[in-house]
């Protein structure tokens, strides 16, 4: 599978479409599965990991999914390409950093990705744009059923799907929704939302998962509990809470517009102006400024720019993406220069001038 063909697109989850896509970036479901007659990945020898990989790869590539999945062997990739897949959320940071035989099967549209020899032998993932958890569940459930006909999963009647970490056992399911919450963060109400979510056993994380900071005001909300609740119950719990958070964010945006329209306009315009004219730009600053511009587009303070274009700038200015676009490896300072140049060019091409 040729990764370079992905470089110039932004991937399914940043397509910027689907229900509530002004606030909900993407919906994602992950299932953890293991082979019954092998030790878990952390306890498997290199030759056992090879055996597991060969077996799963063969079964996965026989799946009748359209478009067909391509398999990428991770040890054969450069660090840059592995990082590139992490930035696109097609593989986890853990899989990128792990050692030994491992890989990922990807669909051309980047909705389906199946990781082999992560913490569990198999991690299935489906990711879609907008608030589309139910569609994501239907798709992943179907892929899981098809695989299960060819693989003996580790499963017990009592504990469900058996996983390396007891925090995943049962359904093995982690469902998450990624939200863009700049107004709740700006008005410092976000902490309250987090506390309320934690009380009902939902976890909040940053853009790139475990331990990552919430850069660009992006937050992932996911279920914490995987045992004792059915998939439908878990999905329903998330489904019932997300519309409330969306409503709080919309209220916070409206209040900001009502009470301090000039202040918000200034924040958005300054962000825009900096993106159009800076000559050095870190990834962190880019995320922050693009976040305000994205907010500006959503509340109609910025005209000529579309959400898909901004989403694309979010992903293309990530370190590995930027280096693949430029076609060479760059150190930190060179990246900041290249990033600023890329942003200036793209925003001018879009024919946009700051208000």
């Amino acid at each position, binding site marked *: 599978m040729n990764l370079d063909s992905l470089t110039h697109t932004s991937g399914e989850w940043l397509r910027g479409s689907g229900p509530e896509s002004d606030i909900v970036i993407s919906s994602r479901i992950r299932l953890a599965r*293991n082979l*019954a*007659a*092998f*030790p*878990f990945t*952390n*306890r498997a*020898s290199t*030759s*056992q990991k090879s055996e597991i990989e060969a*077996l*799963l790869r063969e*079964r996965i590539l026989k799946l009748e999914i359209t478009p067909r999945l391509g398999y990428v062997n991770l040890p054969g990739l450069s660090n840059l390409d592995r990082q590139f897949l992490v930035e696109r959320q097609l593989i986890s940071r853990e899989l990128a950093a792990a050692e030994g035989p491992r890989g990922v099967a990807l669909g051309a549209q980047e909705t389906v990705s199946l990781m082999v020899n992560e*913490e569990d032998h198999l991690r299935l993932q489906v990711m879609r744009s907008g608030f589309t958890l139910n569609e994501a569940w239907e798709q992943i*459930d179907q892929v*899981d059923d098809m695989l*299960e*006909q*060819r*693989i*003996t*999963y*580790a*499963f*017990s*009647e*009592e*504990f*469900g799907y*058996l996983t*390396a*970490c*007891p*925090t995943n*056992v*049962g*359904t093995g*399911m982690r469902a998450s929704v990624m939200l863009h919450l700049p107004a709740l963060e700006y008005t*410092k109400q976000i*902490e309250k939302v987090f506390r309320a979510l934690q009380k009902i*056993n939902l*976890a*909040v*994380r940053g853009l790139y998962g*475990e*331990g*990552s*900071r*919430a850069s660009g005001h992006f937050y992932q909300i996911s279920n*914490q*509990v*995987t*045992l*004792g*609740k*059915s*998939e*439908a*119950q878990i999905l329903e719990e998330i489904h019932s809470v997300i519309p409330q958070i969306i409503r709080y964010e919309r209220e916070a945006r409206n209040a900001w517009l009502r009470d301090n329209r000039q202040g918000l306009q200034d924040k958005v315009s300054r962000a825009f102006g900096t993106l159009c004219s800076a000559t050095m730009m870190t990834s962190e600053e880019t995320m922050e400024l693009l976040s305000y511009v994205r907010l500006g587009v959503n509340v109609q303070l910025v005209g000529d720019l579309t959400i898909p274009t901004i989403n694309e700038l979010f992903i293309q200015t990530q370190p590995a993406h930027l280096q693949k676009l430029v076609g060479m490896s760059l150190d930190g300072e060179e990246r900041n220069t290249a990033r600023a140049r890329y942003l200036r060019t793209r925003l001018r091409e879009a024919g946009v001038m700051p208000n």
Partner: protein
Amino acid sequence: MKCQFCSQPATVHLTKIIDQQKQEIHLCQDCAEAKNFVKHQELNLPALLQNVIGQFLDPHLDELSRLVCPVCGIRYMEFRTQGRLGCPHDYTVFRSGLEPLLQRLQRSQRHVGKSPRQGPAPTPQLIEIAQLRRQLQSAVDAEAYEEAARLRDLLRSKGSHG
């Protein structure tokens, strides 16, 4: 309530008691971080869960600490320090330790939800295969190639259980 140092809303509330004198301080997150009252909060729930697994004190620890999985060879205490189990069979072997832990982590001890359409796999056969795989690995590590070849043939005769 407003922060005592700036006009932002106060979200951190501290109570100091010195010589039986009570003093209350109200700060916003930024001032509290700047004054080192609270650490910048990284959202890292799995790491917190890891701590729960490591620190969970169960009443039968002595008994549990002697348990070893006959299939993958992991000891119960290894699981407790690493937070990761060694193979699917550990859920049976370490059951008495896992159940209270699951209750605490997951607030439940029983699966509700999807199950494989084929039904559960025939367990004794799978355990035998997993054990043979481990013996094969030990034979290869010890360069006992005749034994390894014998085990490999035996495994093949058991059929492919993915």
